[in-house]
């Protein structure tokens, strides 16, 4: 949900909507105001100008101060419904003066021009016009002509214009929304692809690349990503190749040394004491070194993808029993190996996994070490101190040692990594955890 509201997509959509709304309101508002003024002015002038003209034409005929009859005659001369007022008198015909505000009346007294006021205090807007009758010299005669007319027509025109504008905006909004979605997709799809690729790269799949389409900034980013991934892959390949080459170069001298370790062991008894110790040391370390180089070669083959799976149908319990027996572990391990659980596995690789997990438990865990076979699962547990929490995520790392005080273990430091790679080759996993009752539990899951 979080990403739904805080992602780039909703932000883009909000921006597009806001922009559209603002643009529409600004454009509509401006044209609304202009059109309104024009229409109202037009209507007002259409009413006011002829009236002013008539008043001006009649002015010379009126005697000032006028009598009631003068006012009536004047009023009947005017073609629009108007009322003629002089101080306390008003023409008998014409509309009621109630619509004219006191301020307007006051204002007209000192005005030499026509004054008007638009009002909206009734159902329809209307304009009130006051025309002062002037003497030829421009001074006021005190005679006033008042008239008003409805502006309902133009107002309706304006209203329908506004409605049309709102309808237009509401039609454009979904369009803007669609455009926003489209743009967001155009931006987000590559971004999401890059994100997925970066995650893949981070999880170790260094051959991950993204499509470099187009020539925009996102395509640039994709190119940058790809070249970074390429360099990463090349440097990893180089370092792995180096390990493979070193191991390979070590093999020939090790073969020569290994060939004679048995001779050293056999003859050590007849050597002077110091020489015997030295001979046994060289012999033992040569064997360790051999194991290390063998494990390094094995890991290198996994890295190069040179290891193949030879799947066959095997009885898992029997396979595990054989693995334990071959290493003389039968008496030191409590095995629960039910018959009849079979699976398609590479037996040599399963043997390597079991040997490494059990060997690790015997070395670092506490007795009793238990091995249990269940459908799809082989579990190796011990009663030792368990694995420190901070070591759990790294337990399958190469040369990782949970106990830093132990400078060098008996194994190569690659046993668990090799077991893990073998499980992965099967399409399976190994999980390391601590049992609630204490001790480490390694769970091998194979899709057999």
């Amino acid at each position: 949900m979080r990403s739904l509201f805080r992602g780039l997509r909703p932000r883009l959509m909000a921006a597009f909507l806001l922009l559209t709304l603002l643009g529409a309101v600004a454009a509509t508002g401006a044209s609304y105001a202009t059109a309104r003024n024009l229409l109202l002015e037009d209507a007002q002038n259409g009413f006011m100008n002829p009236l002013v003209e008539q008043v001006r034409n009649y002015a010379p005929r009126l005697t000032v101060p006028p009598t009631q009859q003068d006012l009536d005659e004047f009023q009947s001369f005017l073609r629009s419904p108007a009322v003629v007022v002089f101080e306390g008198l008003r023409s008998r015909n014409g509309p009621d003066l109630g619509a004219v505000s006191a301020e307007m009346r006051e204002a007209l007294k000192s005005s030499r021009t026509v004054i008007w006021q638009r009002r909206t205090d009734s159902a329809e807007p209307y304009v009130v016009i006051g025309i002062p009758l002037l003497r030829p010299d421009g001074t006021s005669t005190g005679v006033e002509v008042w008239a008003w007319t409805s502006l309902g027509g133009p107002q309706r025109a304006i209203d329908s214009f506004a409605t049309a504008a709102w309808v237009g905006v509401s039609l454009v909004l979904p369009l803007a929304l669609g455009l926003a979605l489209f743009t967001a997709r155009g931006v987000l799809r590559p971004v999401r692809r890059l994100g997925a690729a970066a995650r893949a790269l981070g999880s170790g799949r260094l051959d991950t690349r993204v499509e470099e389409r187009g020539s925009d900034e996102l395509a640039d980013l994709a190119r940058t990503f790809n070249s970074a991934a390429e360099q990463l892959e090349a440097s990893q390949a180089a370092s792995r190749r180096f390990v493979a080459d070193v191991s390979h170069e070590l093999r020939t001298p090790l073969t020569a040394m290994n060939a004679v370790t048995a001779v050293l062991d056999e003859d050590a008894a007849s050597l002077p004491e110091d020489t015997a110790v030295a001979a046994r040391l060289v012999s033992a370390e040569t064997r360790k070194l051999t194991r290390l180089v063998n494990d390094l070669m094995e890991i290198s083959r996994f890295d190069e993808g040179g290891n193949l799976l030879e799947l066959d149908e095997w009885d898992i319990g029997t396979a595990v029993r054989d693995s334990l027996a071959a290493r003389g572990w039968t008496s030191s391990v409590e095995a629960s190996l039910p018959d009849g659980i079979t699976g398609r596995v590479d037996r040599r690789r399963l043997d390597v996994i079991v040997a490494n997990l059990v060997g690790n438990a015997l070395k670092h865990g506490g007795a009793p070490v238990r091995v249990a076979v269940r459908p799809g699962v082989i579990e190796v547990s011990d009663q030792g101190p368990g694995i420190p929490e901070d070591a759990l995520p790294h337990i399958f790392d190469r040369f990782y040692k949970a106990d830093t005080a132990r400078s060098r273990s008996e194994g190569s430091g690659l046993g668990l990594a090799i077991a893990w790679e073998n499980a992965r080759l099967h399409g399976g996993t190994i999980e390391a955890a601590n049992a609630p009752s204490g001790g480490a539990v390694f769970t091998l899951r194979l899709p057999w």
Partner: protein
Amino acid sequence: MVLLVEDDPSVREGLGLALRRQGHDVRAAGTGEEGVERLRESRPDIVVLDIMLPGIDGFETCRRMRMQAEVPIIMLTARGDDFDVVAGLEAGADDYVVKPVEPRVLEARIRAVLRRTVSEPSNVERHGSLMIDRAGLQVLKNDVKVSLTPTELKLLLELSRTPGRVLTRQQILEAVWEHDYLGDSRLVDACVQRLRAKIEDVPSEPRYVHTVRGFGYRFGPR
């Protein structure tokens, strides 16, 4: 007598020393050509052949040796690469060990390959046009002697002991190669191919050694 073909002097000396301590008479050669030459003059019981050799490599050396004699050959592969193993077995090697080799392992393999097939007091068996003489340890096809390496002979005797019964690769490995419980089943496949090339009329349509997919091999003339 063991013929050791290995270009590295230290490995040659070390392995030579170890093999001599085990009671073998050891002749050594530094190149493939020299190895082929030595094979001709000294008729060893077994050849231990390195794959990485200057000049003609181990595979080619193996092929040339095979043309001369039915001597058992154990390959020393430097990489343990699947490619090396397969190519070595195709070139005619009986078995292989991976460097850096444990002398005990090499010794065990040599002993297994060298262990003579025991002749059994038995009648000559006839399977189709194939005659298997368990007493004289020879195989005739259409009354012509078939020249088999000791491993091929052991494989054929093992398979033909129970005609019609399927033997798994693992059973065959334990019986013929004396590998303990986890051998490389490709040894069996490669040896079966070589055996078929010698005893079948059409190796791709075998009459005697049948593949039972997913299980192993079955002997029986059809």
